[in-house]
């Protein structure tokens, strides 16, 4: 029996953490993810879970402690945002290269500067080449569901990679919405007990984790890590299928919203997809063939699948909530365009930047983008590439 509730994104993820009850959680507070370690600490204090919570002095330490605990054989977890993630930089790569299946709940917030505490994806995108699996949520329900799927993906024998479960700061993390929760037992059965094959605190079976590797080995190790990331694709889909059986909620690499006959598609990730869907519904009323491809799994990047889903459209708008400062748009723009090129899908593609540092993205903005795509095809008016949506000029 599903449980109906009302929760913020942070509450939803904390609720899932209580249900999964990982062994160790080192964390350091940073807005807007602070509530997660706070709520987990409350659950622990109230005897509702028995995770070993480690209050550390920085995010460099929280990720280091999570890595140490995971290598020792404990299911580990941490939470962070923005500058906290940036401070973990070196350790993020170690977690992945040492093939440690730990989980982080990232509440996306812009990276300074200018210093600002609101949402964009510059923190997560900055960590896009660290070897972590990254799964993004549109709302509290998806943040909850994605967290429950995180350990089964990370700990799968074909994967053994860390997973980042991402939700938009404040917009998702603090806004209270309806949610459907699962019973504790159902979640516990789905996630199961962590039984690592090799771990440090394993008497009689000594191992060394993260040894120095000379040039004759390091490149091979990196290839193996990349292979695991590729293999994660099928595991992510398997876990989603199993999750659908117990929850009734369907997940894939992305959600196709009214794409079946869509001529103009917006590719977007995170909470703004909800706003864009509203615009699509209104435009569909007027007979416009528009739709949304909402990316859920950013790492591994489902390049071929995206190209296929876009192949019948006339034009796609790729929306980045992140600036890459290299003069050619954002990370989603680059990767999606490269995917189209490699799959020989020749449609028009325009990269937009929106919502930086919490700037509002409205239904009207989304409609304007669809309008620009249509004018490009029907009137030959080419929209400016990499334009900032809602910028004062």
């Amino acid at each position, binding site marked *: 029996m599903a449980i109906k509730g009302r929760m913020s994104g942070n509450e939803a993820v904390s609720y899932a953490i209580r249900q999964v009850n990982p062994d160790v959680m080192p964390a350091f507070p940073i807005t807007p993810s602070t509530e997660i370690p706070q709520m987990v600490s409350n659950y622990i204090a109230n005897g509702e879970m028995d995770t070993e919570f480690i209050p550390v002095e920085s995010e460099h330490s929280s990720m280091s402690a999570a890595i140490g605990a995971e290598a020792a054989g404990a299911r580990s977890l941490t939470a962070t945002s923005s500058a906290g993630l940036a401070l973990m930089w070196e350790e993020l790569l170690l977690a992945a290269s040492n093939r440690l299946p730990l989980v982080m709940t990232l509440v996306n917030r812009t990276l300074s500067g200018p210093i600002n505490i609101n949402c964009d994806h510059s923190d997560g995108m900055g960590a896009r080449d660290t070897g972590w699996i990254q799964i993004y949520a549109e709302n509290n329900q998806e943040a909850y569901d994605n967290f429950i799927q995180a350990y089964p993906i990370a700990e799968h024998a074909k994967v053994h990679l860390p997973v980042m479960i991402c939700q938009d700061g404040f917009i998702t993390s603090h806004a209270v919405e309806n949610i459907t929760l699962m019973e504790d037992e159902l979640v516990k059965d789905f996630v199961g007990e962590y039984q690592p094959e090799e771990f440090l605190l394993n008497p009689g*079976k000594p191992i060394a984790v993260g040894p120095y590797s000379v040039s004759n*080995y390091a490149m*091979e190790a990196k*290839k193996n890590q990349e292979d695991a990331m590729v293999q994660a694709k099928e595991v992510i889909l398997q876990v989603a299928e199993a999750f659908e059986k117990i929850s009734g909620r369907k997940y894939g690499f992305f959600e196709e919203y009214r794409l079946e006959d869509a001529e103009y598609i917006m590719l977007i990730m995170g909470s703004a997809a909800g706003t864009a869907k509203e615009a699509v519904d209104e435009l569909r009323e007027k007979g416009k063939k528009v739709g949304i491809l909402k990316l859920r799994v950013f790492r591994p990047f489902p390049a071929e699948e995206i190209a296929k889903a876009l192949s019948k459209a006339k034009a796609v708008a790729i929306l980045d909530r992140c600036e890459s400062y290299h003069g050619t748009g954002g990370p989603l723009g680059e990767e999606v365009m490269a995917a189209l090129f490699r799959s020989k899908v020749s449609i028009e593609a325009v990269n937009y930047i929106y919502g930086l540092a919490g700037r509002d993205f409205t239904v009207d903005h989304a409609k304007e983008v669809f309008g620009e795509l249509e004018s490009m095809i029907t009137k030959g008016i080419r929209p400016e590439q990499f334009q900032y949506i809602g910028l004062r000029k």
Partner: protein
Amino acid sequence: MRTEIEKIKETTPHQDLTEGLMVFAGGTSKVVQTGEWRTNTPVFYAEKCKQCLLCAPVCPDSSIPIKEGKRGEFDYEHCKGCGICEKACPFGAIEMKGGVD
């Protein structure tokens, strides 16, 4: 996943390496003669030694072997020449000399 470390060589294809290059054995650092990194070398004067054993536990490379309660000659195959043992010895039985041997 457990692999005998001796079976991994510099010609091993990537598929056959261990995950994350994990090493499934203990004490493997003995195999590599890291003593050749040394630029200074401790010299042991057995006649001055009182066998107090203050030197052995401070050696970061376990290069002062103890047998039947007595320290012996340095393990020069692994000693890095850091000089910590010289500082620890209260009886001047250890002296650092420049060079590898």
